[in-house]
Every structure is written in structure tokens, then in C-alpha cells.
């Protein structure tokens, strides 16, 4: 059994986002980069399945050399080896093309990743990879068990859950509570340094989208405070001033 976990290298969730170069680039100064929070769930479930089923687990990232500390962290958490596609991840179609190319050579039984990255939030890559490989894709998956060649899953849908079954191979976008995040221990960190990390050049692709300018949401005016003893006044303001009731 072979499992591939695709991870993104994104600003920590507590980051304040700003832009540079005429609002065309993310201002990376002072930002902490981490494994995408949803990818962390995918990785944690991948490590659990590896231990349960005796699978091999490969971590993959599409990114420049700056992402290697993030990839090493995935190795420290439990991936056996890693692949870095040496390119800036320009859009979902580009990233999916690279993942599908690697997957065609390696016949993974399971391709896991987060439901979406926390930078572009498209939630597109798993579906695109599934379509490119001609295998099912499901997201957001919050429960995953493997019984032989059958995967039993739960997917979050608006207002509840959908339970599903499908044969491997599959591509899954994951979210909590599929597994608990894992924190690397010292032994993991030491062994991660020696694990193989292959750097592969990207395959060519068509450019479908191009990001232009960024902007920040309009800032709020001052918060209007209402005294707790006259709380009911809020309702009148919401109706007549804010006009949201």
C-alpha cells in the first residue's frame, strides 16, 4: 500500500496578511510558515494508516527551496520520504498537473491532502487530480477507514454528514476530525534529517489563471457601544441604522 500526502507551505493561521510590490505579492517578512492546517489532518491520518496497514508514506510539496523546513517537518511527523517539485505553485491547475504527473509514475493507492489550502482556499487540487487520473475524488472527508481495498468515509455536507464507500485508488481532501494533529518528537526530528527528499523539476503546463492585484478588506469604522442596561436598543439600531433585520 502506497500513500501520498500533499502538503502546502502557508502562513501560520495567526498571521496578519499584508502585500508588497504594488499589492501584487505577499509580504513574507515576519511571517511564520507552516504545513497547511487541513494538510496537517491529512498527514496525521496518513501516518496512522501507515502504522496500521504497513504502508509507505510519501510527502509532496510544490514549492521553491524555502519550503524545505516545512517538508522536513512532515518527515519528522512520520512520512518515509518526500518529493519537492521545484516551482512556485502559481495556481490549482498547475499544482494538480504536477501531482498527477508524479502519481502516474508511482501508482499510489491513496492520495491525501487538506480540503483547501489556507492561502488560496480554492479546494480545487484534489478534484483536479482525481479527474486527471480518472479516479474518484472526495472532499471534505472527516473520517477515513481502510478495509482491504475498500475505503469507508464520512464527508461533511451542509448541515450534516454523508457516509460513503469507494474502492481504492482515491484522492481525498481532508479536514478535522479525521485525525488529531501530530507534533514531531525529538527522534522524529533527528531521523527526518536523513530521510530522502527528492527535488524534481516541474512538467510543463498551460497557464489558465493569473493573479493580479491583492487588496485587503475595507476596515470597519469605530464600534458603536450600547450600554448593557439598554441592550434592547441594539435591535432598533440593527433594524433602522444597519438595516440588517
Amino acid at each position: 500500500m502506497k500513500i501520498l500526502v500533499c502538503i502546502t507551505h502557508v502562513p501560520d493561521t495567526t498571521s496578519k496578511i499584508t502585500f508588497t510590490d504594488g499589492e501584487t505579492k505577499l509580504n513574507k517578512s515576519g511571517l511564520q510558515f507552516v504545513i497547511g492546517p487541513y494538510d496537517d489532518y491529512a498527514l496525521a491520518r496518513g501516518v496512522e494508516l501507515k502504522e496500521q496497514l504497513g504502508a509507505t508514506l510519501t510527502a509532496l510539496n510544490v514549492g521553491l527551496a524555502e519550503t524545505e523546513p516545512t517538508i522536513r517537518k512532515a518527515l519528522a511527523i512520520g512520512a518515509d520520504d518526500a518529493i519537492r517539485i521545484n516551482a512556485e505553485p502559481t495556481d490549482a491547475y498547475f499544482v494538480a498537473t504536477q501531482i498527477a504527473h508524479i502519481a502516474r509514475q508511482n501508482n499510489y493507492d491513496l492520495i491525501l491532502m487538506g480540503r483547501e489550502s489556507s492561502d488560496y482556499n480554492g479546494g480545487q487540487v484534489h478534484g483536479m487530480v482525481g479527474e486527471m487520473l480518472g479516479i474518484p475524488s472526495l472532499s471534505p472527508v472527516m473520517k477515513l477507514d481502510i478495509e482491504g481495498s475498500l475505503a469507508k468515509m464520512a464527508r461533511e455536507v451542509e448541515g450534516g454528514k454523508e457516509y460513503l464507500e469507494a474502492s481504492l485508488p482515491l484522492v481525498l481532501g481532508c479536514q478535522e476530525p479525521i485525525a488529531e494533529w501530530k507534533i514531531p518528537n525529538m527522534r522524529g526530528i533527528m531521523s527526518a534529517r536523513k530521510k530522502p527528499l527528492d527535488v524534481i523539476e516541474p512538467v510543463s503546463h498551460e497557464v489558465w489563471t493569473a493573479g493580479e492585484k491583492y487588496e485587503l478588506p475595507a476596515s470597519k469604522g469605530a464600534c458603536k457601544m450600547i450600554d448593557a442596561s439598554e441592550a434592547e436598543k441594539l435591535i432598533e439600531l440593527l433594524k433602522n441604522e444597519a438595516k440588517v433585520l
Partner: protein
Amino acid sequence: MSVLIFVETTDGEIRGTALEALSYGAEVARMTGTSATAIILGNSLHADNLVSIGNYGVAKVLHVQDERLNVGVIQAYTQVLAQAAEKEGATIVVLAKSSLGDAVAARLAVKMKAALASNVVDLPDLSDGFKVKRGVYTGKAFQTTRLNTENKILALKKNAIAVNPGSDLATVESFSANLSDADFGVKITKTDKITGEILLPEADLVVSGGRGLKGPENWGIIEDLAKALGAATGCSKPVSDLDWRPHHEHVGQTGVKVSPQLYIAVGISGAIQHLAGVSSSKCIVVINKDPEAPFFKAADYGIVGDAFEVLPKLTQAIKLLK
């Protein structure tokens, strides 16, 4: 050339966000000088609802009456939409962001060789190519994105357009797609869905509670206010982590991102991850005992006070209003 709009249904009704997709698609068709066609899959929708699609500016509806499509099978839905787009000569597909819409859009993009923009928050800018504004960094920013391909797919964030229904009726046409067993390779064995409740991701009004409520047994005051308002209930991440509330109520960066008209946060301090999930709300009210709670900086209205005293007063005032 035309615009195809995927209309998602739930419990035999058209989803609220699908009405936005219809209005958006009709407007894009007008802007590009083409026609718009809606498509409905499955046979759970009543005939009156089908023709009512005309109210949203779309004159033609393709209805795929195949009961296997009464549940959202992602690959089968993708096939149907691709075939419908081909039949209609559609170069633009519009859909509302959802657990099904997102999954279908990604596969359809590859099938149609179409650039896909997600979290679209406004009508396209056609003055120089085809550009859309979309939410990025989990509600912390927006990006203008250029779509270079002839075919395009737009997945809309809630509130991308205002819905102003008219009174026109649509004509309904049957459409059958060629589907193989492989398209139904994924089996949906069971669905656990709360029915009759307002769905959080699509709600216009949301009342959310945090750890300040001290325990799940105290959620009655949140539910009472939500009920009086006709609002959905949400919660902060610690609350769902503690299992006080179900995970699908978790609002924030790694939970549900909401964009309601009104978001009322009770006993939530306002961590940056929570703010990211609510930043596209039109109006934010914060009720917190702590006057230093960071959430007040992101709020339009604030009350410093004890939720157990303030909320019943608000619920009472709403009831008097109605």
C-alpha cells in the same frame, strides 16, 4: 456561447445560494450578450419550483430526471454538467460554493479545460479580458484573477450578488446524459442531515457562542435568540473542540466561513482565526463581558455585559418587533 448555471437543491427546494448563482449567471449572460440556462439534477424538485427559476432571470431550465442523481454523486454530476455545457455551447459555468459545488467544479474544470475561480465575490470585469475578484487568505484578503481560457468556471461565495426576483417563468426541457457505472463508483451509504434548520454556511443571520457561555447546558439563550431572529447558530473553535457543539457549527479559519447580513458573537474573544471566518459579514455585533476583547475592534456594535442578562433582553426585543 452561453452561460450554464448549476442549481443545487436540498429537501426538494432550490438552495438559497443557488438563487444567487442564477441571478449572477443571468447577469453575466447579459454582460456578455448571450443567454443563460439553468440545470437541475435529480427528480426531487417540484414542477412549480422548476418554472420559478425564471424569476431570477434565467429563461430555460434543463431537468435531468434520473433518480440516481437525487444524491450528490460527484463524478456523475461532473459528467452531466460537462455534457450539458457541450449541448448548450456554454463557455461559462456558474455555481455556488458548497461541499458538492466545489467538488464538482474542480473536476469539471479539467474536463472542460476551463480556468476555475473559487470564492468569487463580485461580477466579472470584462474591460480588459476576463477578471474576477475572489477571496483569498481565508477571508483576510481579496485577489483580482485573470482567467485566460475560453471556457471558464466561477464558484461563488455567498453574497456575490443581490437577488431581486421578478415574475417571469422558465421553460423546462428534459435532458438525459450518458452515464456509466464508473460515474457511480462512489456509493453514498447514508446521509445524516439536520432538516428544517437554517444551514449555517448559507444563513443571512447567525448567532454564535464561545467559551464565555461556560458550558453546553447554557446554549438555550443562544438558541432562543437565534430562533426569535430566524438565525442559524454557530460557535468558536474551542467550543466545538470541547464537544459542546457539533463540528459543523464551528465558524472560523478551519471551520465554516460565513458571510451573513448579521453576525452576533456572544462570549467569543475574537482570535484572528475566528475573525477570518466572519470577515465578510455585513454587520457584526459583539457581546462580551471583557471590554478588552479584541473582537470589539472588528465589530459594528458592541455590548459589554453578561450574556445571561443581555441575550434574554435582545430575544424579548425581537419578539416585540414582530
